[in-house]
């Protein structure tokens, strides 16, 4: 079985985001870019399934600018076998990405597709679901455990207030939640080996898809700054402030 996983290039989780002065978006100049953390989990899961003998090949896909090859190389170092870049400078939205991924599925016919449950840039949590709809495949979102069978997968899902276990027919789309696994570090020997692994590059036009945006961004604003904390002299002052200023007790 082939497993297809995604590796989105996003602003690193630990970077302090700055909004551009004209409010058109966030400043990406000289900002550290990394693999979307939920995709790291997807890659790790696919590699573990391969290591367990449940899959023969792990293919990693990224949709975006040419530099996405860095994220593909990371995934290849982590154990994916080959990469596919759908290269475009277009501002990407979940629907466009899902269409590109659908085209890749049509080419590769994987038995399982694992994506992150969301990307930490837009926090949309839509790509996996849209992809399932476009491809007409089953979906199991927010997975914290995957038990892969011959022609079905049993997936434990993180839902409000508990866990839900479902079985889906393969091929299926699974999206990863945080508890699914703890991704490994990229080993240096594997990074060297990964240099020889192939990356195929297509444009959306090559795949016959239109990834242009459907949603228009009006403006981007940073969250309101939180006021600094203060120290109070006594419990009485604290109670007074909680009651009369913060109004959280009566």
């Amino acid at each position, binding site marked *: 079985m082939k497993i297809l996983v995604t590796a989105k290039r996003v602003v*690193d*989780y*630990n*970077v302090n985001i700055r909004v551009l002065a004209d409010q058109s978006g966030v400043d990406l100049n*000289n900002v*550290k870019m*990394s*693999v979307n*953390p939920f995709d*790291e989990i997807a890659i790790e899961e696919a590699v573990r399934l391969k290591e367990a003998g449940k899959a023969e090949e792990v293919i990693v896909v990224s949709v975006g600018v040419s530099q996405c090859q860095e994220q593909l190389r*990371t995934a290849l170092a982590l154990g994916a076998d080959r990469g596919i870049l759908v290269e475009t400078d277009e501002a990407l939205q979940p629907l466009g990405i899902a269409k590109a991924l659908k085209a890749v599925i049509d080419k590769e016919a994987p038995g399982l597709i694992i994506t992150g449950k969301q990307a930490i840039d837009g926090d949309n949590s839509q790509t996996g679901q849209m992809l399932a709809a476009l491809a007409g495949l089953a979906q199991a979102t927010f997975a914290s455990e995957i038990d892969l069978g011959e022609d079905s997968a049993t997936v434990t899902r993180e839902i409000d207030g508990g866990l839900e276990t479902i079985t889906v027919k393969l091929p299926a789309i699974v999206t990863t939640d945080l508890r699914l696994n*703890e991704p490994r*570090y*990229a*080993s*240096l*020997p594997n*990074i*060297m080996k990964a240099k020889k692994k192939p990356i195929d590059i297509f444009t959306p036009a090559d795949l016959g898809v239109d990834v242009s945006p459907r949603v228009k961004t009006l403006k981007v604003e940073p969250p309101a700054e939180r006021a600094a904390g203060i120290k109070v002299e006594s419990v009485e002052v604290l109670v007074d402030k909680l009651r009369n200023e913060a109004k959280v007790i009566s």
Partner: protein
Amino acid sequence: MLPDQVLSQLKAIVGPQHVLLESEDLQRFGVDRTTLWQANPCAVVLPSAVTMVQKIIRLANDCNLAVVPSGGRTGLSGGAVASDGELIIALDRINTVIDFNAIDRAVTVGAGMITADLQAFAAKHDLLYPVDFAAAGSSQIGGNIATNAGGINVIRYGMTRDWVIGLKVVTGAGDILDLNQGLLKNNTGYDFRHLFIGSEGTLGLICEATLQLTRPQADTTVMVLGIETFAAIVEVLEVFKTKIELTAFEFFSQAALDKVIKRQGHSAPFATQAPFYALIEFETRTQVTSVALALFEQCAAQGWVLDGVVSQSLAQTRALWRLREDISETLWHWQPYKNDISVRVSKMSDFLAEVDQLVAARYPDFEIVWYGHIGDGNLHLNILKPEDLPQTEFFERCGIVSLEIGELLARYGGSISAEHGVGLLKKSLLPYSRSPVEIALMRSIKKTFDPKSILNPGKVFDALV
């Protein structure tokens, strides 16, 4: 105990609520991170202004009261220990930003400011205060200056000394000195500022400091390599240092890694077991990373390196740093005897071979944990106390071996205290690093600034009589 009359004068100077006498406070303020000495100060005073410090020092001179300056008490050599009825002066309330100037990239702060607060202040202004180490969340700028703290960025940014451009101190005689005033160029005779840096509270109370800030670091990439031998660590250091501007080159042994993983719940960097690990950090740039990869291949081909990983995100950079940064706190559990020694990097390889042989022969029954800022020629050689051995006996045995390490260091022109200072713990070793003439000169300098020897008597060298 403190005479009533002195006590009331102290209360008059700082306000009654800022003289602490409760046993709990005396215990807390009376010791640093060494565990050998019992706290026994007579009182703790918390002044909030330099003039108050001056009045306290004058009072202490008048009644021959010994004074211990206290910072964050994260010190590892007993410099801030008050075990003999001393008065503790803690500058916790002199801890604010007094002046900041973006053109000078200089900030003046109260010496009681926590190191991490200064780092955060600099970051807020898009600048960097580059001295950093695992105790930065508790140590104070005054304590850092008094010990000339080093840390994890010395290979790139130097020691605390390199960032101090002004000091306001109250000498042991009670004079207020405004030293160097933040100037970059000031050739007007002896630079007393540098005498106070590293003086471990023996010359004066550091009350305010002006620090140079610099441009922030770019995001960094961290590699952790598994390394076969001591000699190979130095080879790897040399290879990397000549080709890349490193921001850190640290090392630790398998025993250190095992303990950190077990006690802190971190994940191992890779499955391969290696006797030693090097943590190498550099600013993230595509070309630099590819050079680093090539260097890794070169080191692997030589057989020096067994395996390795490289961070792919800032989260991984931080997680890999924890493997090194959490060692000191983790080892606390075993009440280690800490050697903090240095030699020139060029002599490291030969020195390591000899010191390894020495401790293996002398400590056959003790567990030895190696780590340190090896890129600076600095080794933290920790001997762990066997559970059933009483602490005094353990320290006695380690003390004897330390004399042999001292002799070895003297032969290599090394230092018996690379960054933790001398305090009480390393006093007997001082002659291995400093000549009798030098020590005599230190004493006469102390006498000049602190004629009645009220400041930290018995620290660094025995009290003057």
